[in-house]
């Protein structure tokens, strides 16, 4: 399955208006100035895939994942953050009987999260099980955070062996 669409609402620097990133198979570049919100989109994907460590999404706690408002734009703090990822499941890798599978997560300021599969509420454990059938998870090797390459250029031989060992 590949990603057909990412929707962000109230997630980090994304405001109350839902922002949609429509994607194809193939090679898409995301560019823009420093601080514009590029890495926040990657954080949003980790979030929707059930990532529990807010530090990995560069936030001190769950509330920091929610849009903190903007005086200049006249916008209040958001009450919750929501990210939707729409997957193309035509290869049937995910054990769900639709060719498009929508996964979403909301988080509230009290830290509570609500997960949904095709719009219906589901437990985190259950959704992780479905995603893992397609080798998709927030910790899989297919998401490479900013700074990974710079860190990899200084590793020593033991660390390099450990990386391969951890894969098995």
């Amino acid at each position, binding site marked *: *399955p*590949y*990603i057909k669409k990412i929707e962000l609402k109230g997630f*980090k*620097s*994304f*405001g109350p*208006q839902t*922002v949609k*990133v*429509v*994607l*194809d*198979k*193939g*090679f*898409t*570049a*995301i*560019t*823009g*100035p420093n601080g*514009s*919100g*590029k890495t*926040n*989109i*990657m954080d949003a*994907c980790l979030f929707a895939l059930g990532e529990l460590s807010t530090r990995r999404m560069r936030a001190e706690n769950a509330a920091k994942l929610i*849009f903190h408002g*903007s005086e200049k*734009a006249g*916008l209040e703090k958001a009450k919750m953050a929501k990210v939707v990822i729409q997957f193309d499941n035509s*290869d049937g890798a995910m054990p769900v009987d639709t060719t498009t599978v929508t996964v979403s997560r909301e988080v509230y300021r009290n830290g509570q999260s609500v997960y949904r599969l095709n719009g219906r509420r589901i437990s985190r454990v259950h959704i992780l099980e479905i995603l893992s059938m*397609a*080798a*998709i998870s927030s910790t*899989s*090797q*297919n*998401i*490479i*955070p*900013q*700074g*990974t*390459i*710079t860190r*990899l*250029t200084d590793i*020593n*031989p033991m*660390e*390099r*062996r450990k*990386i*391969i*060992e951890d*894969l*098995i």
Partner: protein
Amino acid sequence: KRRVFMDAFDKINQQLKNYFSKLTGGGFAFLQLENPDEPFQGGIDMIVQFPNKPSIVVSGASGGERSVAAVAFIFALKDFTPSSFYILDEVDAHLDAFHVSKLADVLLEEAGKIQFIVITLKPEMVNKAQKVYGVYERNGVSSVISAKFLEATS
């Protein structure tokens, strides 16, 4: 455990050679066990040879050359645990224009089978992408705009 490890090592080493050659336009790289008899007692070195240069241990290469080797390593690992989509965040920060466009060529080559979502500041990368999103911020609020749509068959 050892047999599984050595099997993985061989596969990853094979792919490292493949990707490093593509990223450098003809270079050669391989992994070397410090202790081949007892792989878990030693580490794994990487030997790299950039086109028209002698082969050296990767730690002696330049900052950008080590970045190229790191990218090739990440791609070699990718083939070991394949996924249908990848999100890469500024993996090209220390690469010069030549190596950025080589990396873009590798992504284009595999774009038929795999989805790549690449966050980048480099024009050589943006220019070769099949689709481009610009992210911008106004008064602390982020938004996106779709900038380009090349035929995926290009």
